[in-house]
């Protein structure tokens, strides 16, 4: 037996339920109908599905391949850390070398191995520059990934008109109150200058520390001077300032995140 008959505008209320524009009383009514009327459940599902299909209107655009690498690096890094946390004995004890590594090689095989090693070395030298760049990038991603735990705000920083080629990634650890920034193509400044990081919320920018990269590609880490810097809802900005100036942004904006 149905205790509350459906009103004439029940479909409109279901649409309102999907669009989240109902009063609490109306929403409660809809939820009661869901238990009482099968047609309400199926209609609600159809409306929800229609609403959720709107993104398919958009012509698909692929993200850059680096996003996939960052996702997998963050996931694999966290998975390894989780595994280590679950097996603390294994994590703390040095891993014994497998016995097979210590087995002595016969002389002939040793010579062969040396030959291959020399060939490998030549190849490594030939590809050294390429490898170095790739390694640097991988290491940076690994460093960023190691900080990229859930709850640690992660910012992609884009160069502005002042430094259009520059980019960076910033990870904030709210628990440790630390910031890690990896910059690329951000030129080193003279000793009397620094880059300063600012958190922009709904008031004046908050000073969040400073750094000066030593090369075109660099990683810097420091303790945050203000807890507001670790609030994940701020926008991060980097300006070039004179080191002697008070912590008020006055120099060129060189990097910025969107949120």
């Amino acid at each position: 037996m149905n205790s509350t008959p459906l009103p004439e505008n029940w479909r409109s209320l279901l649409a309102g339920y999907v669009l989240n524009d109902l009063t609490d009383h109306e929403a409660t009514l809809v939820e009661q109908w869901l238990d009482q009327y099968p047609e309400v459940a199926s209609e609600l599902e159809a409306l929800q599905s229609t609403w959720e299909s709107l993104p398919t209107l958009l012509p698909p655009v692929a993200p850059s391949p680096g996003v996939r690498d960052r996702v997998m690096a963050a996931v694999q890094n966290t998975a390894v850390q989780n595994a280590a946390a679950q097996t603390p004995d294994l994590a703390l004890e040095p891993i014994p070398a497998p016995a097979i590594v210590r087995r002595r090689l016969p002389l002939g095989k040793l010579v062969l191995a040396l030959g291959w090693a020399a060939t490998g070395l030549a190849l490594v030298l030939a590809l050294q520059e390429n490898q170095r760049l790739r390694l640097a990038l991988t290491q940076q991603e690994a460093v960023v990934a190691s900080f990229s735990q859930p709850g640690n705000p992660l910012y992609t920083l884009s160069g502005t008109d002042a430094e259009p080629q520059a980019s960076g990634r910033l990870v904030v650890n709210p628990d440790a109150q630390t910031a890690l920034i990896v910059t690329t193509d951000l030129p080193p400044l003279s000793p009397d200058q620094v880059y300063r990081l600012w958190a922009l919320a709904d008031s004046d920018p908050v000073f969040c520390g400073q750094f000066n990269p030593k090369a075109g590609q660099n990683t810097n880490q420091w303790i945050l001077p203000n807890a507001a810097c670790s609030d994940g809802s701020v926008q991060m900005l980097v300006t070039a300032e004179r080191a002697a100036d008070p912590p008020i942004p006055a120099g060129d904006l060189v990097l910025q995140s969107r949120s």
Partner: protein
Amino acid sequence: MASEPVSDRDLVNSLWAGDTAALATLYDRYSSMVYTLALKMLANPAEAEDLTQEVFVNFWQRRQYNPDRGSIGSYLATYTRSRAIDRLRVSRGRATILQRFQRITAASSRSANPVDHATQQEQRQHLRAALDQIPPAEREVLEIAYFQGLSQSEIAAQLGIPLGTVKSRCRQGLLRLRSLLEHQRS
């Protein structure tokens, strides 16, 4: 003989069982959809890529998705939209302060992924055809509500029309769209 592609459900089960490689396959299937929606809503490629990363890492980390309660595409779209709205609300709140710093960078878009499924194209065509059939005023409020994430009162203020009108247009538009899509399917 080509093997059958692994179903989303099987991939999710593998992922929950600890096989992180399954996430790579899910990423390959859905990253364009997630990124496209993020880019549409945030209008900034770097921000959209950040959100795409967040969506997939959180998908794995939180394990809130239940295959029995809907498709993974629908779940990811809803989650992406919700997180994009959060970011937009923060951005809007500080818009005036930003003017001291802001150098607007035009959002650029990369070319579309050529491997998108034909079914998605078909679905898009059906939806576009249905949207074209509903009154423009209803279409407008629906698109603003979805892609800009504005509340109905914010839409009313933006368009300069009464809140009640926005509400009725949104509901009517959604009901009409649902009906048209059902007709197309049948």
